[in-house]
């Protein structure tokens, strides 16, 4: 949901109610005939990090967590809020105290009722230094009272600003007004957990035989690095409108093998390897699909003291950025329907209005000519060749992009580019220590708002590996945080980026998948790709 939108919502409606009946209906259109076998099988790249909602940190694990557990709020196919365990919430005038009213028919898979106490337990647990969840920072980001102190170990976790007023009323106190707070409760870290079960089984509680959950599904099988199986939770409050009986996630590391197995009919959903989309789209229309995602892909210059002198010349940065033929990268190299990038923030981010930059409007031929002129002006030519190193982490797709870029620079600008690939952790360490000249970067938004991207270029940001330092940008970001109309500020920030070019935006990600045509209601429009198995169904063929 867009931040402006939420602000308006919060300003005009201090209480948010939706008749749960409207949403408790089945998502299956009347004219669809359902298949007999309601099993959905999909490929995941890697083993999940954890099944504990408070601990899980990866996408794959979060997908499971959203099926197995249910938080206060859910997202619908568009990414808008819909009721989860909470049916309504009220907020005080200054947006600092939220009161959620829970439904009385929500049950745990062992039959116990889901109460406000389970949320209190889960939220306290998430901040507990002893559990040491890597997502503790999320609770701090939510600005819950005392969260920061508890994480630092200065206060006991019982002092967290959450309270069970009664079994069905959950109250949260914030330190700062956060209008989009309800949106944040769709995240796995905030899901309830069952105190009795966790205390009984300790760190073994996420084993299928021990786990008790409150989502639409229960975990029935988990074979690490091979598969996990979740099946319908008959105790779930909306069980009668849940269509899929069984959801199987298969771990297949190799995307080409996964595609082969998809074509052999073993999978209902898998990723499309880079470059294969056009062919697959032709051969399997409607099955190979692509939609925008909230991620960017860029190369960052090292502008710190340890960076090379050449990149401190703005003309060199401009020339390199101009000479990148983004059309070739997006249409021929990646070829998965990725949008070309001339801004740092993807255009798909809601409420973000990308500025019309000069570069975006030029033709590639003009850009190339301009790049050559700029470089000549900066003093580089045949007798004084521009030369630099660029690094990327080992991966087939990154390699292709890097090679294509280096060839563009070499052929158009006569630059000597030395490519170096690195194993992931070494790469992160090297980039984090500013031990590079030009490095690959990518970022996926934590939430659907431009600041999640733009914050990366804040001079104070720990993620700013290129050490770009621009006082105006910093101050605009500061203003945007408290502004009710941040969109214009974000556009202004993008203009600074387009002028200064601390990074070369290459493209914005697309989700490129093979999705079997008998799978109904895949939320292609949810740019964060928060999907729920309970909303999917299999159509009879």
């Amino acid at each position, binding site marked *: 949901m867009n931040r402006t939108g939420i602000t308006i919502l919060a300003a005009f409606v201090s209480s948010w109610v939706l008749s749960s009946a409207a949403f408790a209906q089945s998502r299956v259109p009347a004219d669809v005939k359902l298949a007999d076998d309601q099993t959905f099988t999909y490929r995941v790249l890697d083993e999940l990090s954890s099944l504990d909602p408070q601990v899980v940190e990866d996408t794959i694990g979060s997908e499971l967590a959203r099926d197995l557990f249910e938080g206060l709020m859910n997202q619908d196919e568009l990414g808008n809020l819909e009721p989860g365990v909470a049916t309504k919430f009220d907020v005080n005038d200054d947006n600092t105290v939220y009161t959620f009213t829970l439904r009385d028919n929500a049950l745990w898979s062992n039959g116990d009722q889901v109460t406000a106490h389970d949320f209190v337990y889960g939220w306290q647990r998430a901040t507990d230094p002893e559990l040491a969840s890597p997502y503790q*920072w999320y609770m701090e980001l939510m600005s819950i009272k005392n969260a920061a102190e508890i994480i630092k170990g200065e206060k006991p976790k019982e002092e967290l600003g959450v309270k069970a007023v009664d079994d069905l009323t959950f109250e949260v106190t914030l330190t700062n007004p956060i209008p989009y707070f309800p949106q944040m409760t769709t995240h796995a870290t905030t899901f309830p957990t069952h105190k009795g079960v966790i205390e009984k089984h300790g760190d073994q509680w996420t084993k299928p035989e021990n786990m008790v959950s409150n989502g639409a599904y229960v975990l029935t099988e988990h074979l690490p690095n091979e598969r996990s199986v979740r099946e319908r939770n008959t105790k779930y409050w909306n069980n009668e409108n849940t269509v899929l009986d069984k959801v199987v996630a298969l771990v297949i590391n190799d995307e080409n093998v996964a595609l082969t197995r998809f*074509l052999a009919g073993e999978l209902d959903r898998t990723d499309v390897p880079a470059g294969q989309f056009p062919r697959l789209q032709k051969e399997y229309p409607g099955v190979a699909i692509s939609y925008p995602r909230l991620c960017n892909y860029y190369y960052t210059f090292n502008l710190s003291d340890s960076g090379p002198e050449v990149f401190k010349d703005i003309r060199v940065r401009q020339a390199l950025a101009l000479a990148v033929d983004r059309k070739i990268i997006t249409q021929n190299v990646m070829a998965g329907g990725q949008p070309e990038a001339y801004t740092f923030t993807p255009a798909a981010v809601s409420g973000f209005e990308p500025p019309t930059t000069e570069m975006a409007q030029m033709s590639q031929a003009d850009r190339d000519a301009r790049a050559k002129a700029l470089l000549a002006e900066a003093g580089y030519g045949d007798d004084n060749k521009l030369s630099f190193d660029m690094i990327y982490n080992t991966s087939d797709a990154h390699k292709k992009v890097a090679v294509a870029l280096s060839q563009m620079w070499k052929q158009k600008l006569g630059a000597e580019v030395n490519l170096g690939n690195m194993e992931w*952790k070494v790469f992160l360490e090297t980039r984090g220590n500013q031990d590079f000249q030009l490095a690959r970067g990518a970022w996926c938004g934590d939430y659907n708002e431009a600041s999640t991207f733009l914050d990366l270029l804040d001079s104070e940001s720990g*993620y700013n590996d290129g050490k770009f330092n621009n006082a105006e940008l910093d101050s605009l970001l500061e203003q945007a945080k408290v502004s009710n109309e941040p969109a214009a500020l974000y556009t202004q920030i993008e203009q600074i980026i387009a002028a200064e070019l601390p990074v070369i935006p290459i493209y914005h990600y697309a989700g490129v998948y093979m999705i079997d045509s008998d799978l109904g209601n895949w939320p292609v429009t949810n740019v964060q790709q928060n999907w729920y198995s309970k909303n999917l169904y299999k159509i009879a063929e």
Partner: protein
Amino acid sequence: MFAYTIKRLLIAVPTILMLVVACFFLMHAAPGGPFTSERPLPPAVLANIEARYGLDQPLWKQLWDYLTNIVLYFDFGPSFKFKDRDVNDVIAQGFPISLTYGFLSFLVATIVGLSLGIAAAIRHNTWIDYLAVGLGIAAQALPNFVMGPILILVFTLWLGWLPGGGWNGGQWPYLIMPVIALSTSYMGSIARLTRSSMLEVLNSNFIRTARAKGLSDRSIIWRHALKPTLMPVVTYLGPVFVYVLTGSVFVDIYFSTGGLGQAYVGSALSRDYAILLGVTILYGALTVAVSLIIDLAYAWLDPKIRY
């Protein structure tokens, strides 16, 4: 021989200890830690995590705690990456899988490889020799990462005979492709080593003497030539045995078997210190054990060898 075995078993303990210490320091010297990520964690959170896993202690203390936990409780620590699981879990789940497909592959590779090699040497420079050499080279020519995708393309997509991956408790349809892929890569080497070693033995004086005595070919080969032939082959098989039993990362990646091979390589890449050390210890213990068995086998193959 008995005394020698006891002595070697006693040496095994310091050997493995040395392995642990070496691996421990190498691991910490490698850039990036288990919690290095694209999104660096806030300092307070990182401090909590490091405290939980004991990474805030000085290195010698970490090593000491690690060793005492193993000795006292047989506890190899929690995984840093898979937060619900500990090392014992990971090994208990992955090792039986690797053991199953690994052992089968080892058997297949050894039996086929030895037969091919012996047949080729006995019928040196006949069509049998050429066929065996050809098969050996063909087996070597397709590395695991070519073999895996080819098998899946052929047997899963085109013929539809076998499932494209998974383990399913090790039912045989799930086993066939991993075993073929893994065994072929060693089969060729075994065949070639056996062949050349056997040719050498057949050319040596004592076989010539035996021949001169008028012994039958069959008895020469089985009674006299086979044992010395096996010396280098057995040496080669030792590390292969250990490697194959602890799983192949290629098999795990292409066939989603969930074995230890992938857990091992994955742990090194993600700097999951505990799993890496745990599997290394298992690997080291097997290496030490197998190298003892091989040394004992030498004495059996060549009675003149004394230790």
